[in-house]
Structure formats: C-alpha cells, structure tokens
C-alpha cells in the first residue's frame, strides 16, 4: 500500500459556503476561491442537495443576523448519512460573539467574525485541513483494522475447525486414558493423541508447540499424521519420534519447535516406554499413589535438530500392577493463581498421590480450577492420566475375526533372513507387516498376522539369539533387568540370524503358513507353553495358539511354524 498522500494539507479543500443570497454569500465565495479552494455556494434551502452533490470537506456558514439559522443548517447537514466528519466554520457578526460559546458547544467547530480577515481565514482553513487530514488517516486505519479483524476471525474459524477435525479431540477415546485439554486462545498449541498398535500397545502423544494461538496450533500439525499412521502400522516409539522430528524440522521455521512426549504401554509384554523431549516429567504412580519413577525430559524438543538413533531411544521400565502414568504440559505446572503463584510439579504429584486411584483426574482438575481462581491460564493446558491396569483393555486380536481372503493373489511366498545389522533396525515386524499389506493381505487379518509374527519373532530374538531368560520377567525389578540386558546384548550381537518364511495360499486352503527360525540354541518351549494365562511370561505363545489353527515347535525350539486360517 502507498503511504496516504496528505492532499488535504496542501490546502485544496472542497468548501460548501452557505448563506443568504442577499448577504455575504457572494463575497465569501470569492474570498475562499481566491485562497485556492474549490467552492460551491448555496442558500440554506439548497444546502442538503448541494452537500450530497459535492461532498465538501468543510462547511462555511454565514450566520446572517441570527445564529439559530446557522445552527439549524448544520444540524440538518449532519443528520445526513455518512461517516466523515465535516467541520463547520461559522461567520458571525461582532454583536453575536457573546452567543458563540453556545454555538461552539452545539454545532460549530470554529468561527470567524465580520469583517473577515484574509490572514485569519487562511490560517483557520489550514488548521481545519490538518485536522481533517488526521481524521481521514484515522478512518483509513480503522477500516484497515476492521478488515484485518474480520479476516483474522474468519481464518481462526477455519483453522480451528480444521485442527479439530485433524486432531479429532472429540473422537479420542480409550478406556485407559483420561485427559483434559484447554487453550489460552481459540486454538491450542497443546496436542493430545492416542491410538493402539496392531499388537494392542497403547501409544500416547503429548505435544506442546512454542507459544500459543494459530502459529502454535500449526506447529503441532506435522506430528499428527506420523503418529497415527505409524502407530496403526505397529512402529515403535523411536521410529515415530524420528519421523516426527524430520517433519517438524522440514516444516517449521527457525525458532519454532515442539516439545513432545511419546508413551507406549504394552500390557502383554509388561513394558512402558517413554520418550520425552522438552516436556515436564511423566510420573509413574503405584496403585496406592506412591511415586515409582519420573520419566524426565532427556532430549531437546523436536524441530531443533535431527534425531539420531541414540537420541530416539526411549526409556523403558517394567509395568507395575495397576500403575498410572501422569503427564502434563508446562502450562499446567506453570499455571498461575491470581496472586501469581505457579501451580508447581510437586503439588501436582502430591495431589494425584493423595487421591484414591479412581479419582485422581477429578482431584487434579478440581485443584487446578481452584488454583486458577476463576481466571484463565496464560498458556494452553494439557493433562493426561494413563491407566496401566491389567483390567483396562481387552486384546483386540481375536480368532473370530474373519473376513475371507479375497486378496486376488492365488499364492505367494517370501523368505527373509535377518542378520544382526537388520535385527538392530527397530520395527522389523512393522516393516514386514507393511509388505504383507502391499501384497494384499485383507485388512481383517492384518492385526492378527502382526501379532502372530511379532510374538514368534520376539521369541526367536529374545530367547534364541539374545539368550534372555523369561523367568526374569516374573517381577518388576526383574523386568527392568531383562530390558536392560536386552538392549545391551542386542547392541553387542555380532553373529546369528533369524529366518522368516511367509507363505500365503489363497483360494485352495485359505491359510498363511508362518515359519520363524533362528540360529540360536533354541529354548524350552514346552515350559513356556505349559504356563497359564496369568503367568507373567509365556502369554505370547498362548495368544498365537489361540489365533492360529496350529503352532508347532521343532524339538530344540529354534523353529516355530504357525498356520493361520483366512476363512
């Protein structure tokens, strides 16, 4: 936009001179015209018509013998529609001066006395021009501001609709998760998302983007798609964190980043994984409220730099029976009371700890509302309570899920041998399941096949190659030890391999044969298989048996063959 030209200050005003035809009208017209202004002269009777016609910048009203006539004229003109302010200059006789104060209060903006001094008239017109110039500029700015405001409103409306659809907060539901989210403005820079993997692990994402409002809200968008898509395919936290990091680095400008926490709760394996980059700690509470562990932020937020394998590795901990995980954005811990006191992490934890297990979220939100004292928070708030209780979820994988084959392929088979370098790649099973998907395995069977393949694969890796003892998994401390050993041995693994043979027959026998064998010494599969469902380990094999029409181990236990029916 060009700078507004200050044309009024250049003294070319359009002036409407109103007066009686037999009075000072003609001399006034000549005088103003000589000063370089455009003049239209008329009698009070024509004033309205002329006013509309020439849209003057200024009125010059000769009051004649009485002020009341002039007042009447300006009243009528000002009643005409229009937003512009048109100053009125009265020309009065000396004898009217005592009454002018009243006129100035009512309608007149300034006055001149007869006989008119050219110098004073010129000065007054200039002053009026300056005031007009300011006023016009004001109007322009106000109009611009209004346009801007309406545009912003509309943009906010569309953006918040889009964000709601994208994040689908209203559709978020999982029996294991309670959450509360509220934003400091229309749009929240905090994001909560959760979903289940094909293996029924719960994945939770808590993200907090720099600032708040539209820009912050846009900042969390790059996280949404990788989180859902990769969880659905069964990828683990490291791969998801790395993909989210890439997206945020690609999309967001310098100085904008996203603090993110990823949680996975795998009840079947009894493991909690947390990756925390830049959020307050996630606190694990025991059934009685005792604090078991804090998953502190160990990384910089997403969007500051690339995330290598080491930085993407989550912290793992064994699941304690009926434990809960408490997660929150810094908006909660830093929420200020009307007196300016922060809520504080310790207070949050102690309130949750003091409440009975089933009423912790309620206690926290009540305490937070009381702390805010009816005021609103400066920042977006996100609060989450994740229930790791065994009773919270049912396995999604069920032998009853049958959708027929219908993949169009008659028969195909693939074999893949994985050596230590490939085994260290995270999410081997998710990648293989992705291959199955592309080969056309019907959707109804994908979850089950993922579960079967991952159970057999994990057994082959943990017991066959890494020689880990399942008995360690008997209690939480042992489980922590198991996880630690697993990480260390996998890193050090330099020999051995796992062979996967996947054979699909569609149309004739309608079944998939999955063979997983490893180069290790085998393991005591009989002992594992004899376990009941309540044992801390061995549930994997039971689950595979339930899903498949048959499961057989070779004598040594380093080769498993499962047959899954596609009926």
């Amino acid at each position, binding site marked *: 936009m060009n700078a507004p030209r200050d044309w009024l200050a250049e003294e070319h005003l359009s002036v409407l001179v109103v007066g009686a035809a037999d009075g000072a009208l003609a001399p006034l017209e000549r005088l103003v015209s000589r000063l370089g202004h455009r003049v239209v002269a008329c009698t009070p009777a024509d004033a309205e018509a002329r006013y509309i016609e020439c849209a003057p910048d200024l009125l010059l009203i000769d009051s004649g013998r009485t002020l009341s006539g002039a007042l009447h004229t300006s009243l009528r003109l000002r009643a005409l529609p229009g937003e512009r302010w048109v100053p009125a200059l009265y020309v009065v006789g000396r004898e009217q001066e005592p009454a002018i104060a009243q006129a100035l209060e009512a309608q007149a903006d300034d006055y001149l006395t007869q006989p008119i001094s050219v110098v004073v008239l010129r000065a007054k017109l200039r002053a009026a021009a300056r005031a007009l110039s300011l006023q016009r500029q004001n109007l322009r700015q106000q109009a611009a501001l209004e346009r801007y405001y309406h545009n912003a409103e509309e943009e906010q409306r569309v953006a918040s609709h889009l964000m709601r659809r994208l994040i689908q907060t209203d559709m978020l539901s999982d029996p294991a998760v309670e959450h509360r989210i509220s934003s400091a403005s229309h749009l929240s820079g905090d994001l909560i998302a959760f979903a289940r993997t094909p293996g029924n692990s719960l994945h939770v994402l808590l993200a*907090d*983007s*720099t*600032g708040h409002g539209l820009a912050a809200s846009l900042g969390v968008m790059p996280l949404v798609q990788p989180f859902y898509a990769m969880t659905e395919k069964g990828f683990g936290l490291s791969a998801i964190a790395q993909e989210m990091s890439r997206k945020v680095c690609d999309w967001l400008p*310098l*100085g*904008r*980043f996203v*603090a993110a926490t990823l949680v996975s709760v795998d009840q079947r394996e009894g493991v909690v994984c947390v990756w925390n*980059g*830049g*959020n*307050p700690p996630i606190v694990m509470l025991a059934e009685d409220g005792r604090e078991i562990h804090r998953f502190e*932020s*160990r*990384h*910089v*937020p997403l969007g*500051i730099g690339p995330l290598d394998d080491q930085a993407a590795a989550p912290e793992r901990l064994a699941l304690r029976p009926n434990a809960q995980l408490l997660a929150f954005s*810094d908006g909660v811990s*830093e929420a200020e009371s009307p007196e300016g006191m*922060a809520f504080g992490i310790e207070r949050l934890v102690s309130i949750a700890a003091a409440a009975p297990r089933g009423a912790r979220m309620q206690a926290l939100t009540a305490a937070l509302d009381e702390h805010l004292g009816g005021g609103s928070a400066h*920042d977006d708030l996100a609060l989450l309570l994740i229930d790791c209780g065994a009773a919270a979820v049912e396995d999604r994988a069920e032998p009853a899920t049958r959708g027929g084959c219908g993949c169009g392929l008659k028969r195909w088979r693939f074999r893949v041998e994985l050596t230590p370098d490939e085994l260290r790649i995270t999410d081997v099973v998710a990648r293989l399941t992705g291959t199955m998907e592309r080969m056309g395995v019907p959707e109804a069977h994908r979850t089950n096949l993922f579960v079967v393949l991952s159970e057999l694969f994990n057994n082959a890796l943990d017991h066959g190659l890494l020689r880990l003892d399942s008995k360690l998994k008997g209690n939480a401390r042992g489980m922590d030890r198991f996880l630690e050993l697993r990480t260390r041995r996998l890193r050090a693994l330099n020999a051995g391999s796992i062979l996967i043979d996947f054979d699909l027959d569609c149309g004739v026998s309608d079944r998939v044969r999955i063979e997983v064998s490893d180069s290790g010494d085998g393991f005591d599969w009989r002992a594992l298989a004899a376990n009941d469902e309540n044992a801390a380990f061995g549930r994997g094999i039971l689950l595979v048996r339930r899903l498949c029409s048959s499961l057989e181990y070779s004598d040594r236990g380093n080769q498993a063959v499962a047959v899954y029916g596609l009926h």
Partner: protein
Amino acid sequence: MQSQVRTNDGIARIMLRGRFDFGSHRDFKTSYEAPLSAADIRELEIDMGGVEYLDSSALGMLLILKERAGATNKRVAITNCRGAVKQVLDIANFSKLFPIR
C-alpha cells in the same frame, strides 16, 4: 523486559531483566543487533540473572540468536540461571545446545 549490554574483552554481556516471553521479541533483538555486527566480539553472553520467567518463545529467540551468531563465528553462552529459568532450560535440555554457566 529490559536489557543492558556491557562489552569487555571480546565478550558482549547482555543482561536481561523481567519476563522473557513472547512480548520480548523486539527488546531482545535490539539488545543483540549491535554486538552481533561488531567484528571484535567473539561471544555473546546472555545473563539471565534478572529474569524471573522464561517461556518457550524465549527459547525460540535464543535458537534464532544462536543460528545468527554461528553465521558470523560467534559463540552464545547462557549464564546466571536460577529457579524457574533454570527449570525451563533443563526441561528443554538446552545444555545440549548452549554452554550454560
């Protein structure tokens, strides 16, 4: 937020006071423009001694400064962090990005 800059022996010490948040963009930028373009400055020291509060927008501004300083071979250090300021920098793991003294 208010700022004051003192230069000594190639180090520009930028002392900040008050709330360092999204409203401080212009103040912060103004405070480092001169030292950033001075050839004899090797390090910009952001002194947080007088800062009561730091938010994520402030962290973003620090990252922008780091990037700009890097382009002219200058270092950025953060000093005198206490209380809430230290907590925010710790949670964001900024010690992996800046020397914090």
